[in-house]
């Protein structure tokens, strides 16, 4: 036997470069941004004069930021509900022992392989409403040909729809992922359990209602965490698809932060937006990480 104590020290040495990188590039940088958000830094030249919470006060008085927070809330609610519902429904359909299951599964999942920028470029074209000169474009054109004019809409150009048009593209991209998660969960439920319920006279609906959905709860939680953190920090899709939109109707905090910081050089203000974003994600993710970590320890 070799000296295990020496190996244990070596183990820590092996991961120390990563730990150091995480310490600096995640926690150190967050600390830097946090301090910058309390400073008076508004030009390219670093200025760490302490001004307290002034940037946050100004931020929450900024109409654009208030619209952004509302948009983030709307986007998160619509995106989570639609993506989880579609994903669950697709998983249920594929659980019915259908022919060509793998073909369907691959069709539903492929958008996960492409970037939000590509998704944004395509959906900007599909949901382009058209003008009085061009006539209806994209899906509006399809609707007009099919006699479904009532379905036509201004999509992302209509401020009353705004960010909800972006949800269509985001759900298109992510629903297959949720389907895959649920499908894996459903396949892990033993067949005997459902069979026993059937023998007791339960309908298929009862089986989903009282057995499958409750057993899938951990997966639903994962889905909420994954989709939730994506939706809070959504950036690429909005940039590629709509930009800030009419009256900031499709604007999000990440885009505001980008404009403020890297176009406007108002670093302190940008840092404050970044910290608000971080706080929102942390509220969602940290309890989850603590719970999963505790389970790991007790296991």
């Amino acid at each position, binding site marked *: 036997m070799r000296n295990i104590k020496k190996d244990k020290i070596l183990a820590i040495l092996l991961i120390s470069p990563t730990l150091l990188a995480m310490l600096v590039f995640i926690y150190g940088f*967050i600390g830097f941004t946090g301090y910058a958000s309390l400073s008076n830094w508004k030009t390219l030249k670093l200025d760490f004069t302490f001004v307290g919470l002034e940037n946050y006060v100004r931020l929450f008085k900024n109409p654009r930021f208030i619209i952004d927070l509302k948009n983030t809330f709307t986007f998160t609610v619509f995106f989570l509900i639609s993506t989880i519902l579609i994903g669950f429904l697709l998983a249920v359909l594929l659980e019915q022992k259908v022919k060509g299951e793998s073909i369907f599964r691959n069709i539903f999942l492929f958008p996960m392989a492409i970037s939000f920028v590509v998704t944004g470029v*395509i959906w900007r074209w599909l949901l382009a409403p058209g003008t009085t000169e061009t006539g209806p*474009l994209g899906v509006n054109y399809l609707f007009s040909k099919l006699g479904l004019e009532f379905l036509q809409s201004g999509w992302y150009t209509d401020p009353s729809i705004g960010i909800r048009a972006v949800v269509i593209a985001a759900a298109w991209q992510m629903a297959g992922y949720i389907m895959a998660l649920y499908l894996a969960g459903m396949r892990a439920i033993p067949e005997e359990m459902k069979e026993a319920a059937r023998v007791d006279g339960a309908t298929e609906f009862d089986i989903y209602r009282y057995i499958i959905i409750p057993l899938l709860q951990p997966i639903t939680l994962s889905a909420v965490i*994954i989709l939730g953190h994506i939706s809070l920090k959504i950036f690429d899709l909005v940039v590629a698809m709509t930009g800030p939109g009419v009256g900031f109707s499709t604007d999000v905090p*990440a885009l505001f932060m980008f404009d403020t910081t890297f176009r406007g050089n108002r670093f302190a203000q940008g840092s404050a937006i970044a910290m608000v974003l971080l706080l929102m994600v*942390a509220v969602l993710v940290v309890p989850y990480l603590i719970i999963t970590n505790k389970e790991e320890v007790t296991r």
Partner: protein
Amino acid sequence: MSVKVKHPRRPITFGRVTTYLLLVAAAAFFLIPVYMLLITGFKSYQEVSLSRMWLPPENFSLESFSKAWFGSKSEGFRGLSGNFFNSVWLTVPASLLSAFIGSVNGYVFSKWKFKGSNVLFAMMLFGMFIPYQSILIPLVRVLQWITQFTGPLQKGIAAWNLGGGLAWFPPWLSQFIPAYGTIGGLILVHVIYGLPIATLVFKNYYSSIPTDLVEAGMIDGAGIIGIYRFILFPISIPGFVVVLIWQFTSIWNDFLFGVIITSNPTVQPVTVALNNLAGSYIVEWNVQMAGALLAALPTLLIYILLSRYFVRGLMAGSLKG
């Protein structure tokens, strides 16, 4: 006989028909953007018309693809070809590096646990979820600071004259030096921020491998490095495939780091260039669609060829292992 009577056909058939109808409708929803991408991309400029926007082209033309790839001097926009290769030179080394470091980390976190290692691991996982906005400002400053030291090195290599057929080599090589605005800088950033997910996948992968194997190695006198090198690394291929696919896809598809760290259009990755191309009013829709398809092609091909491993990566990303 009685079994047949107990299971009348009609209700089942009705359910089956509904199931298939819903599946086909869903498939249509998922495929419409692809259909649009393909039919628009393969149209020439002459064929693009609003009345035919949902119809396939009458003559398949590669004109849009060639414009998206090479650009158009007369219309004044750059093609994506250079940016496509920037993405290749960025994605391949960054994926390999983060996968390798992630595998060593995962090995330690699963087989050499120490007091507090689970807490450290959870703190590392937090890095997977953070909005990168909260680290971008210091990140840019640190990269600019590094550039003081690496910038002259980069210029030195680029100025190196090999002449003849190798003249392209020094400028190409100099791009890999980590600095603000270089591919090397982007590689560094992607490796660091890719470590949490890479470590997570390998930790889960090695946790599923019996610890007996490690103990057997110890009894044979192997140390921590020997056990990794001769016992775990050789059976890590499935883990590497999953992590490499995941990293390749997410680095190729990244936009935020690309747009922040590279401002020079000749250095930018393909997603940033595509966004510029699509945001430009002079570029026609058919060229934008062709460009979108070109930018999506590598990750789509990986998905089509290796979808099984791709799905495993997605599952790993859900934290459940």
